[in-house]
């Protein structure tokens, strides 16, 4: 009698979709087949506060115009996994954009003018990444620390009050307010494996679109963007808190 009752309940639950196949598989120890992992795509949102004023003694031209707050840096990173055994080693490229807007300065009294001015930064970088996902893959520990290091080339340009690239007349040699600056960066962070929260959804995500793992991650990034100290370039170095989503597929 009890056996029949339990069987009936299980049958009803099965057909009602309350006991999904994946759960049955997990309970019975049958692991699902995962699609190959090759790439990682990260959408990154972080703070940005370039150290322009660090090149000056008492003057603070950056703070005068843009204030002392943080600015948003948005980036997209694409990585190719070249080794995937005890953790992942990947090479990646990153492109991003940040726009800082402020008020121009009245030269006569140093006050803020009604004219606006803006600085745009487009960081481009190539990097090597290591993600320690061994514990996540082997023991279901949902935390994946990572470290990154790479070479940067940041394109920047400054807008005057009407949105044109700013120009300074230096005698007969006008200097335009744009350029590219080399540098490097190191990032340390940790990702939380979202699959841990919703394993069935994660499996569906893999089957449907090939995304093996999804992470929400946080990272602190040190970027030294000053042409490695060669020449007299504007210092765009910044320490940044970065968060975002990463998809491994």
């Amino acid at each position, binding site marked *: 009698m009890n056996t029949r009752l339990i069987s009936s309940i299980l049958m009803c639950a099965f057909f009602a979709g309350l006991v999904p196949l994946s759960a049955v598989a997990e309970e019975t120890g049958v692991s699902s087949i995962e699609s190959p992992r090759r*790439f990682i795509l990260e959408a990154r949102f972080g703070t940005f506060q370039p150290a*322009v004023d660090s*090149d*000056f003694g008492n*003057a*603070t*031209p*950056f703070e*005068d*115009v*843009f204030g002392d707050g943080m600015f948003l840096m948005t980036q997209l990173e*694409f990585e*190719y996994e*070249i*080794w995937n055994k005890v953790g992942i*080693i990947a*090479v*990646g*490229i990153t492109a991003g954009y940040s726009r800082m807007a*402020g008020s*121009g*300065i*009245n*030269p006569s009294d140093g006050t803020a*003018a*009604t*004219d606006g*001015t*803006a*600085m745009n930064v487009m960081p481009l970088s*190539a990097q*090597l990444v290591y993600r320690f996902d061994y514990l996540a893959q082997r023991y279901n520990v949902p935390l994946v620390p990572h470290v990154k290091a790479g*070479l940067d080339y940041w*394109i920047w*340009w*400054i*807008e*005057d*009050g*009407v949105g044109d690239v*700013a*120009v*300074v007349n*230096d005698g007969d040699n006008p*200097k*335009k*307010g*744009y*350029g*590219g600056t*080399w540098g490097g960066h190191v990032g340390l962070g940790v990702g939380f494996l979202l699959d841990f929260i919703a394993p069935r959804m994660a499996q569906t995500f893999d089957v449907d679109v090939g995304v093996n793992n999804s992470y929400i991650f946080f990272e602190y990034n040190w970027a030294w963007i000053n*042409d490695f100290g*060669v*020449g*007299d*370039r*504007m210092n765009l170095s910044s320490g940044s808190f970065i968060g975002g989503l990463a998809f491994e597929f």
Partner: protein
Amino acid sequence: MLTVAMLIPSSSAASISAFKFLGIDGIGGSCGMSDRIGKVSSSTEHVINIQDCIDYSGCSLDIKWGLDRTPDAGASYAVKVSLPGGACVDTDFTTLGTTCMDSLIVDGKAISSPNYMVFSIPFDYLTGGDCQAGWNKSTKVYIIVKESGTEPTAETLSFEIDLERPAAPAIEEPEEGDSNITVKWSPVDDSSDSTIEYLVYWDDSSFSNSTKNNVSVAGPMSGSSYQITSLDNDTEYFYAVSSVDENDNESVLSAVSSAMPINVSDFWEHYRQSGGTEDGGFCFIATAAWGSYLAPEVRTLRLFRDTYLMTNAPGRAFVRLYYATSPALADAISSSPVLRASARFVLAPAVLMARVMTSMPGLTGPLAAAVFLVLLTFVFGVAVRSWRRS
């Protein structure tokens, strides 16, 4: 603007069977009506604005119509024109009505060629002749057809006569910037017009409604502000704003005010004035790294530039930026064997990608971008693998 011909059924007489409107022609040397008038047979809405009223005064209109059938042998037609805002009786040839013009345009004319009929109306009959009347009314032209054994039937052509100017906007305090003035105004709240746009006039001398055609103008535009650029600092400029309604009627000017652009330091100027040493510009890294503009690697990159960067706007913008100023880092690289070797190592993947892409004829557009990304990923992967093996 002349708006001619909206066909609507008569309010009292039945519609003319198989009636077709064939268009309107302006008659006279300078009476070629603009397309705004909707003179073609497919047009359904026609407007005469203030400027049309002035420009076409004294002209005549030929209104063409026809029947897609053969009426009986004794069929005839009459044409009546209402006063602006008025109406005519359309159930017979003789009764006019109190708001109808006191004579018929056509009085009982035989329909001799039913496929193509034409009659003329003095343009000023439609507008009433006073182009500064300031009203917006409809003038109707009635075509009444009488056939034996039946009641007269009629069609009505309706002309919207918009002689009403929109209100002038009220200007607000401007912003005086570096070589620019931002003019601001309060949007006009005009319930009789669904769309209001604005014209901004300016000059370094004062002007008025009668002289505004001799000064600079921008628009029509939506919004409530406009930045006038490329002005001289410390020069007084006069400006005013007018509004334009959906029928292109322009208001009188707002009050004419003045402002003076002033010198303002943008961030680049402020940075340099504060002692900043950055000169801007990009580095000619490749040339510095390989030591010669004619090096094969540099030639490959130039070919890539010409093939894939100079053929699209973002690429051209990037190249313009790249070649803008002198290369500080390139100087440093060219003077250091270690830095030159490092730069060659870093640029090797880019040269390889450029070489592969420039060897694939016909690779353009999104496909080129996709191949570029794939190659970029592949090349970095190979580079790192090679490094690991070594």
